[in-house]
């Protein structure tokens, strides 16, 4: 499949019908996804109806929107009215939300077509999509490897060419890390730029929905559709900057780039080599590149693994068997809660609920949760300091290329280390993007991460576009 930009242009020009695009995408998934398991469910009827609506609008002379007829893969933690939304969990198996997430409505208004719901680590907790209750997703670049996670299904769907675009959610790197491992573009916006309404919460103060695409331009196109104030989300920013697409090819002449040692050191040598090459390429394109150290980033992982589980322990309390989802009957309500949660949650989710409950408990709150919040403030201040000298920062997205399926499932700490380079942006709420830049020693994709200050998505995409253009 080609880019979203090309598909939308062809549909709008009447060269292809949206219906043909959708039928082709559904056929590709039917033919190829048995190998990858990117999708948990497809929406063939809804997708065809939506495509017909786009074609009808065009026939009637109406503008169907900038993503006319473009199929999109939705992570299965985005609520779709009447269509099963599982979060990769037994707990929500078969659950049909009575409403659409705000981003799903935004896609529809833009003419995009929701093709299906993609696999993910249960409740977005994981870095390999192996924590899905419905079986793992395989990396389309090498099916013995994981696609990363937690948005591994959407990354794989785009990498496999099933859809030009995908949506994921990024709490600690869950868009950027799978993008890096699957060789696609994945971006986490500034916290508050994209509505979280209808995104099933993992860690509310960190979660942010963002785009997957095969090109930076496509990612910018999709981001512009997603961004905007939503009165249904109190943390949605009331005023939003201009769209990013128009300036995506603006280049990096004079841009100050800080190559962040703390986001490179400790990564595999082939990853380090690619990041340094990307820095050189940016310098070659006119950017002023210097090395910078932000040692506070080193504390990010520890703070994250207290704050995110703490919020998750509260957010996931509602899965109690009373109103929706799984219920395992027992003699009274309390025992029913316990039986339901014991059966419905997987090991990693239980681990994080326990961690978070502990971190918030009387007598431990100050030492864990409150201390982690202080570290979070330190990380934000460190970003501010860095951005007083640099316009953007550059680093690796993930410490290694895609690893073997099963390699880290029994070692939570090793799995958590995958997020070490992506977590600082979640703690600060700043935007960041992963762009494919060459391959590692194993021939698998390497992702380079560009980080920008709050609300500077336009600058972020400009720099990312140059990285993309100069990639080997």
């Amino acid at each position, binding site marked *: 499949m080609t880019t979203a930009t090309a598909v939308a242009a062809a549909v709008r020009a009447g060269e292809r019908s949206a219906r043909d695009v959708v039928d082709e995408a559904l056929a590709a998934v039917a033919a190829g996804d048995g190998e990858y398991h990117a999708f948990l469910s497809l929406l063939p009827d809804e997708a065809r109806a939506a495509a017909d609506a786009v074609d009808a609008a065009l026939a009637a002379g109406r503008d169907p929107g900038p993503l006319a007829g473009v199929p999109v893969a939705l992570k299965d933690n985005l609520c779709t009215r009447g269509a099963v939304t599982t979060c990769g969990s037994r707990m929500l198996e078969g659950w049909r939300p009575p409403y659409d997430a705000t981003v799903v409505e935004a896609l529809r208004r833009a003419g995009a077509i929701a093709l299906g719901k993609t696999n993910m680590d249960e409740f977005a907790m994981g870095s390999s999509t192996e924590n899905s209750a419905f079986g793992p997703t395989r990396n389309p670049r090498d099916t013995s490897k994981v696609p990363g996670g937690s948005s591994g299904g959407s990354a794989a769907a785009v990498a496999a060419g099933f859809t030009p675009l995908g949506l994921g959610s990024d709490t600690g790197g869950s868009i950027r890390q799978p993008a890096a491992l699957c060789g696609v573009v994945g971006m986490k916006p500034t916290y508050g730029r994209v509505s979280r309404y209808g*995104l099933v919460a993992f860690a509310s103060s960190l979660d942010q929905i963002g785009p997957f695409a095969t090109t930076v331009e496509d990612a910018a196109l999709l981001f512009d559709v997603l961004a905007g104030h939503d009165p249904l989300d109190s943390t949605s920013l009331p005023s939003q900057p201009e769209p990013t697409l128009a300036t995506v090819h603006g280049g990096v002449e004079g841009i100050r780039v800080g190559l962040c040692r703390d986001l490179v050191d400790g990564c595999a040598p082939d990853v380090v080599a690619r990041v340094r090459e990307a820095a050189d390429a940016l310098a070659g394109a006119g950017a002023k590149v210097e090395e910078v150290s932000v040692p506070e980033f080193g504390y990010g992982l520890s703070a994250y693994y207290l704050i995110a589980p703490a919020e998750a322990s509260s957010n996931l309390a509602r899965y*109690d068997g009373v109103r929706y989802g799984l219920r395992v009957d027992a003699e009274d309500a309390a025992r029913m809660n316990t039986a339901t949660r014991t059966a419905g949650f997987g090991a990693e989710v239980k681990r994080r609920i326990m961690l978070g409950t502990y971190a918030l408990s009387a007598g431990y709150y100050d030492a864990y949760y409150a201390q982690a919040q202080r570290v979070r403030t330190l990380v934000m201040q460190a970003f501010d300091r860095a951005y007083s000298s640099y316009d953007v920062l550059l680093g690796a997205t993930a410490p290694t290329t895609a690893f073997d399926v099963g390699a880290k499932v029994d070692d939570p700490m090793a799995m958590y280390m995958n997020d070490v380079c992506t977590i600082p942006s979640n703690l600060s709420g700043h935007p960041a993007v992963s762009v494919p830049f060459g391959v590692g020693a194993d021939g698998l994709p390497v992702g380079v991460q560009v980080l920008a200050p709050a609300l500077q998505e336009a600058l972020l995409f400009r720099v990312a576009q140059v990285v993309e253009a100069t990639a080997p």
Partner: protein
Amino acid sequence: MSPSDWEMVIGLEVHCELQTVTKLFCGCRNAFGDEPNVNICPTCLGLPGSLPVLNEQAVEFAMRIGAALHCEIRPSEFARKNYFYPDQAKDYQISQYDLPLNADGWLELPDGFRVGVTRAHMEEDTGKLTHIGASGRINSALHALVDYNRSGVPLVEIVSEPDIRTVAQARAYASELRGILVATGASDGRMEEGSMRVDANVSVRPAGTGPFGTRCEIKNLNSLRSLGRAIEYEAGRQIALLESGGTVTQETRHWDEAAGRTDSMRSKEEANDYRYFPEPDLVPLAPDAAWQERVRAGLGAMPADRRAVLAAALGGAPTDAETDQIHAVVDQGLDALVTAAADAGVPVPLALARAANEVAAQGQAGRALDPETYAATLGMESSGTLSATQSKAVLGALLERGGGDPAELAKEMGFEALASDTLGAVLDEVIAAHADEWARFVEGDDKLMGFFTGAVMKATSGKANGKEVAAELRSRRG
């Protein structure tokens, strides 16, 4: 030690539902008494992916309560109070914890005693459970039904300092607070519908000295009467325990109205660890000075001010009965009736008495009565056109019909004043029929005044004017 050697130390926690149009964090209707589960949406059901958005009117009402209780209105924050319960849609309640909207106020009881108000914070209500089973008790219920209409209804929780020392003060505090809540327009203050719910923290100590004793929190107090009885019982229980050498255990206790006792619900050790933390789905709430000023300026007269106005209208110091009437009139919000009647020349004691007795008893119908209509009715009574009995009957009909023209109504009911000669003829008949009683009355047995007045009223179907009858009886006695 005798009971009088002990002193109660009482603090009250009052939850009041705000009468906003919609719920605290969603657009669902905030209404009492609807069919179950009709006012619900993804947010108040706690569906995955839903988010709360704060209701501005609820903040406005909460600020009014804070202002009326002389609180400082502060920059505040919402927090999550985590606990599992089937009526709790998200299994956490969005409340305020270390940063409440209103803090450090006071409430003055009618006798001038001031009770400190620690805080008045905002939170959401839970759904409502109905246990279906043999006894209706939670423990033996076969299953439970949940109504989420109440889930997310805005509440303000008002926490007093432990300044209260007697049952009378506790009742006066709850009653005065109820009046203030109603006066602000923030709540209807109806304990019977659960829109005002009171929990009492009770401990005892040797009178006037030493540190506070261990307290118990009493729940399920659904009326002022329950509040008084429960505190009385609980203090007695604690005193008996201490005097027999025992100790009081800090715990939550349930008031059993039928049995007239408190029973242990859970001890401190069993209490939930609520794991409060800042609610990440909401931003901090810090009403600016201009908003606060608008709220303070817009506050109407509070019950104490209104009682003072009525007392002043009486001219002299009110009698105990009049004081009670003033309280009743202000509690029911009937001040305008009394004022209108007084302005129309009706004696204030009469205007007060009819409002406090006949009108107040009719609840909502009384509050809906038009002040001019009330004034016109009482004007007919005070001018002698209607007897007291007739006036009460006309008021009754007005309240029942939701208004009307009192003069027309009086005519319709046949309440035209009796001509004096007719009264004379009736009296002749009554005296003739009760010759023995009349003889005793003439000899000075004043108790028979009422007997003869009643007999005349009966004979005239209440049309006679009581004052005229009394005057005629006296003049005939000579």
